[in-house]
Structure formats: structure tokens, C-alpha cells
């Protein structure tokens, strides 16, 4: 059996929230700066300097695209609708009431556009993306392979990026959307709940299942069974 040294790996390195890339105070401060800068840009755009719109949307191109590709599935549709969303945002900029951040407002437009596009594709059949059973039972992980730290260079490989994109499509839509908003777009749980029109509790439930399901789908221990798994990982099972 491989050596198990709990003091040496996961916990020893973590005294703050495990996945936090920045501490909350730093993030708040950064968000305040971004918001102030956006305010200036928005005012100048509304005064007629429309070419500044490109600067305003630059930080959100990926988040809008990621949201749309997770909802529409097709790269072409996602790109097309992303362009539509950003053009709509420009046309409606005067209607932005600053009740939320500009980024959140964009994501809301993107989700509405994606829903409309899906309705058209389904010939008018209405459905809700946010409805669905929020199963509150504990999700039982299917694999306990120990992942070592994934080198960020691995994302230079297109097959890794493809595997991540494909894994997302295997989730049910309401789990996928909660995950995208919270973990890809880095919105808060409250913002995610607001956009989806659900409670914070429901967001947490969806996030929990989405994260654990993705972990199982991508788990190196399951890759041999036809799963999407990340092939670059060395598998160390705890019982070996």
C-alpha cells in the first residue's frame, strides 16, 4: 500500500478554504476596483464613446461563452449567441440598473438568450432549465482514487480541455448551470441563486452533486471504463 501521510498532503497545506484561489478580502477588493472601473467605462460609453464597449466586455467574453456552451452544447451556437448577447448588452446598456454587477447582468442576458435559442431549436416546446429535482440525499462518490495536484500545464493539451468540456455535458442541465455560474464564472452562491431564481440551499445542493459527479466522471480511477477520465493522472488507490 502506498504511504499515507495525512500531515503531508491535503490538510497540512490547507488552513483556509481548500479551493480558494484568492482570499475573500483580496477578492472583494479586486471586485470593488473592477466595479469602479466599469462604472467609469459605462458612463463614457453612454456619453457616446461606444468603442470603449470592447474594453468593458473583454473580461466577460469567456464567462459568457462558457455559460452558453454549457447550455447549448455546440461551439458554433455558443459563439453566435455570445456575439448576440454582447450586442444586446450594448444596445440595452442604458437599462443596466447596477442592482447587480455588470458581469452578472451579462450572464442573465446570456441565459435568457440561450433559453430562447433552445426553444427555437425545439420548435416552441417550452421547458425550464432551472427546474429539476434537487436530490438532497448524499451523493456517494464512485471512485476514491487519490488525485495528486494537477499541473496547470496539462491544460495546454487540447485533449484535457476537451475531456473537461465533454464531462460537463454529461451532467443534467440544472447541475451544469449551477456549476458553471459558481465554479467557472466564480459568482457567489447568492448571485447564482439570484440568477437561477432558486434558494441558496438549492444552489448548494446542485453544486455538491455537480462537483462530485464531475469528480467521478473525470476520475483517473474510472478512465479505463470508458469514462471521460483525465488520462494523465497516476492512479493511487487507497486500498492498494
Amino acid at each position, binding site marked *: 500500500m502506498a504511504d499515507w501521510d495525512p500531515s503531508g498532503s491535503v490538510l497540512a497545506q490547507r488552513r483556509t478554504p481548500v479551493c480558494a484561489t484568492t482570499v475573500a478580502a483580496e477578492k472583494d477588493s479586486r471586485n470593488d476596483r473592477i466595479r469602479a472601473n466599469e462604472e467609469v467605462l459605462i458612463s463614457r460609453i453612454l456619453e457616446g464613446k461606444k468603442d470603449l*464597449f470592447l474594453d468593458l466586455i473583454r473580461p466577460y467574453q469567456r464567462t459568457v*461563452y462558457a455559460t452558453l456552451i454549457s447550455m447549448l452544447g455546440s*461551439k458554433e451556437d455558443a459563439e453566435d449567441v455570445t456575439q448576440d448577447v454582447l450586442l444586446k448588452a450594448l444596445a440595452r446598456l442604458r437599462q443596466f440598473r447596477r442592482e447587480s454587477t455588470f458581469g452578472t447582468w451579462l450572464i442573465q442576458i446570456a441565459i435568457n438568450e440561450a433559453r430562447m435559442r433552445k426553444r427555437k431549436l425545439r420548435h416552441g416546446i417550452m421547458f425550464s432549465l432551472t427546474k429539476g429535482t434537487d436530490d438532497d440525499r*448524499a451523493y456517494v462518490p464512485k471512485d476514491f482514487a487519490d488525485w495528486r495536484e494537477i499541473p496547470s500545464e496539462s491544460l495546454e493539451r487540447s485533449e484535457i480541455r476537451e475531456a473537461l468540456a465533454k464531462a460537463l455535458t454529461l451532467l443534467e442541465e440544472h447541475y451544469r448551470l449551477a456549476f458553471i455560474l459558481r465554479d467557472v464564472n466564480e459568482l457567489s452562491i447568492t448571485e447564482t441563486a439570484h440568477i437561477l431564481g432558486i434558494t441558496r440551499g438549492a444552489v448548494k445542493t446542485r453544486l*455538491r452533486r455537480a462537483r462530485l459527479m464531475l469528480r467521478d466522471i473525470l476520475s483517473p480511477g474510472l478512465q479505463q471504463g470508458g469514462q471521460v477520465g483525465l488520462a494523465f493522472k497516476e492512479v493511487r488507490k487507497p486500498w492498494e
Partner: protein
Amino acid sequence: MGITCEEVWRHISDYVDDELDPKQRTALEEHFAICRQCAAVLEGTCNVIRLYRDERTLAPPKGFHNRLHERLDQRLRQGSEEGIRLSRRAVLAWALTAAAAVPLGFALFSAKRIIQPRLGHQSPSGSPNSPAVTGLVAVSQDAEDKLFHIPSCPYLHGKPKFLPIEEAIREGYSPCPICIGKHKPEKKG
């Protein structure tokens, strides 16, 4: 007594989001220290989040930014051209209106200056301040409208016949509402 693995899985996502109270958080950390499987689940979950947060994951395809910028530029150009077109149209419409208004105003002004003295001339007995029509008026010999007009009325069609206003009234003619209008026939006596 520690918590079970199932309880850990139920709270692991909240642990990652730092949404647990200190007591729960400590309980989970104690469990991770003794349960390698749950520690592996935690590690994997964090790896998943790290991977998806990376800017390269779900990034727009190559050329996306250029295509977007081209489309936005195109829209912005269209918008400004539209604005210019609209303002040009507005100026043109305003100019045409003004051009039409000038001769119309001049015509009305001239007509008033021509008609008033003529009426005055036809009615030397009328008061200069009175708008009343006196003297000769014109009726059409062809039209069946039974209206009498001032001789220069553009609504006088057909062959005109001139007669004193009193006679026109006696014959059942009414004043033309266009040319006489306010110029009510002056009643004698």
C-alpha cells in the same frame, strides 16, 4: 465521536465554499485526517474546481475575439451611419417643410392684402374695421353648390356671374365658407 463518511460527502461542497460553521468545519477536518478516502474525494473535488476555473478551460475558440470585434465594429459603424442618415433625413425634412411654408405664407399674406382692399373697394359704404362683405359677389353658373364667393376665390368653379350680395342672398345663395368665412354679409337697415 467523529462524523461518518456519508456526512462528510453531504458537507464536502460547503466545506470547499467555506460555508460551514467552525464546529462542522473542524469535524470534517478531523475526519479527513483519519480517512484517506474522504481526503481523496476532497482533493479530487478541489482539482475539478481548479481545472474548470482556469481561463483555458471552456475558452472561446481561436479567432473568436477577432470575429466578435469585427461584428461589434460593424454594428458600431452601422449605428453611427444610421445616426448620420437619420440626422440628414431630419434636416432634409425640415428644409422641405420650410421651403413649402415660405411660399404658402407669402401666398396667404398676399391674398389677404389683395382681398381686403378689393372688398373695401367693392363696399365703400362699409366700415373699414368691418370684415363684412358688401357689393358684388360671384356665383358659379355651372356649379350646383349655391354658394357665393368673392371674385378671386379659387373655389369658384365654372363660369362666374357677378351680382350684388343682397340679390345672391335673395336667390338662396350662401357664403362660401372658404373665401368669405368670417366675412359675413353685411345686413342693411
